[in-house]
C-alpha cells in the first residue's frame, strides 16, 4: 500500500464518522459550532498520530495479554499532554470542550487504529494512518459543526450570517442526530458516485 493511500483511506473510504460511525460521543457532544468541532478534531488527530507512532514502535516488546492495558496507558498519556497544553495556551477552547478532552482516551477510533493498524505495521505507516484517520475525523466534526452552527444559530465560525435565533433544535442534542444522519446519507451518496 503506498503512503498516500494510507492517508486518504482514513479520510474517504474509512472515514471514522460517516463510514465507520466510530467515536459518536464527542461527535454529537462537541459539534455545536464549527470551531468546537475543528478543535476537538485536531486534538484527536494529535493523539491518533502520536499514539499510533509509539504503539507501532513498542508493539513488538509487549506480551499479548497486556496489549490493551499498555495501549490505553500510551493513549492516556498523550491525551493528558493535549489537555495540559490546551489548558495552558487556549483556555477558552479548553473550557468549551471541557469534559470531552479526557474522553478521547476511550474514543473507539484511537484504540481501534492502535489495534487494527499500528500494532501490525511500521512506525511511519502507522503515523500516516493516524494522520489520515485524524483528518477524516476532523473533517467530519468540522462539517457537522458548521451545518449545526449555520442552522442552529445562523452563524459560520462565529460570524453571524442570518439574523435572529434560527432553528434552535440543531444546537441541541436531537439536532445533532438529525444533522449527522443527513450528512451520512449525503457523504455515502457522493462516495458511491
Amino acid at each position, binding site marked *: 500500500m503506498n503512503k498516500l493511500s494510507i492517508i486518504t483511506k482514513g479520510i474517504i473510504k474509512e472515514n471514522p464518522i460517516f463510514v465507520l460511525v466510530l467515536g459518536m460521543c464527542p461527535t454529537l457532544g462537541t459539534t*455545536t459550532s464549527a470551531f468546537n468541532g475543528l478543535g476537538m478534531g485536531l486534538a484527536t488527530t494529535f493523539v491518533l498520530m502520536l499514539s499510533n507512532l509509539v504503539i507501532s514502535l*513498542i*508493539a*513488538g*516488546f*509487549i*506480551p*499479548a*495479554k*497486556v*496489549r490493551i*492495558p*499498555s495501549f490505553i*496507558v*500510551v493513549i*492516556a*498519556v498523550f491525551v*493528558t*499532554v493535549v489537555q*495540559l*497544553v490546551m*489548558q*495552558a*495556551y487556549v*483556555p477558552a477552547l479548553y*473550557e468549551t470542550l471541557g469534559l470531552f478532552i479526557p474522553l478521547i482516551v476511550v474514543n473507539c477510533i484511537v484504540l481501534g487504529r492502535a489495534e487494527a493498524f499500528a500494532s501490525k505495521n511500521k512506525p511511519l505507516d502507522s503515523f500516516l494512518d493516524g494522520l489520515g484517520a485524524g483528518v477524516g475525523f476532523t473533517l467530519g466534526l468540522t462539517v457537522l459543526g458548521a451545518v449545526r452552527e449555520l442552522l*442552529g*444559530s445562523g452563524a459560520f465560525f462565529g460570524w453571524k450570517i442570518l439574523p435572529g*435565533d434560527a432553528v*434552535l433544535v440543531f*444546537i*441541541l442534542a436531537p439536532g445533532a442526530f438529525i444533522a449527522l444522519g443527513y450528512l451520512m446519507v449525503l457523504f455515502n451518496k457522493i462516495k458511491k458516485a
Partner: protein
Amino acid sequence: MARVSNFKNMFLCLLIICFGGSALLGGVYLITYQPIADAQTAKVSQALAGVLPEFDNVPADEAYRVQVDGRYVTVYPATKSGIFAGAAVEAVTTKGFGGPITLMVGFKADGTIYNTAVISHSETPGLGDKMDPRKSDFSLQFKDKNPETFKLAVKKDGGQVDAITAATISSRAFCDAVSLAYTAFRQTAQKGGDQ
C-alpha cells in the same frame, strides 16, 4: 512477534510503560504549570476589571472566602486611593438547569450592583445561555440596581426581574447567585467600607 505472556514479562512491560508515561507527563506538567496558572489569574482579573468600578489595588491579592448561608463565596475588595470603592463577589449556584453557574457580581460601595459577569455555566445553548451578556440583554437589567429596593426574583415569583423567555429556571438561578453575592457583600465587604 510479541514476548511470552508470563508474569515477569507482563509486569516489566507495564512497569516500564507506566514509568515512561509518568516521566513524560511530569515534564509536560512542569512546562505548562505556569501558563495554566497565568491563564486562570488572567481570567479572574479580566472578569474583575469588567464588574468593578474604578480601583487601583489588586483585588485578587486581597481576596478571601466566606461562608454565607452554608455556601462559600469569594470576595474581592476594591479600593481607590485607599478608600473602599466596592467589591466583586464570586458566587456559585447549583439551581441552574444544566449544572452549577458561577457569577462574578460587582458592587459599588453603597451596595448598588455595578455589573455582572458569567464565569461559567452549562445552560442550554440558545435558551439559558442568554444570561451571557454577549447573547442577550438579560444580565444588563441588573446594572445600577440596588438589591435593597430591587427585588431579586423573576416576575413570575413576584420579583422585578424580566426572565429569559423559555428559561425561567436559568433566570431564577441567576437571581439566586446575585442574591447570594449581595448577602455576602452586606455581611463582609461593606462592613469595613461603611466606617
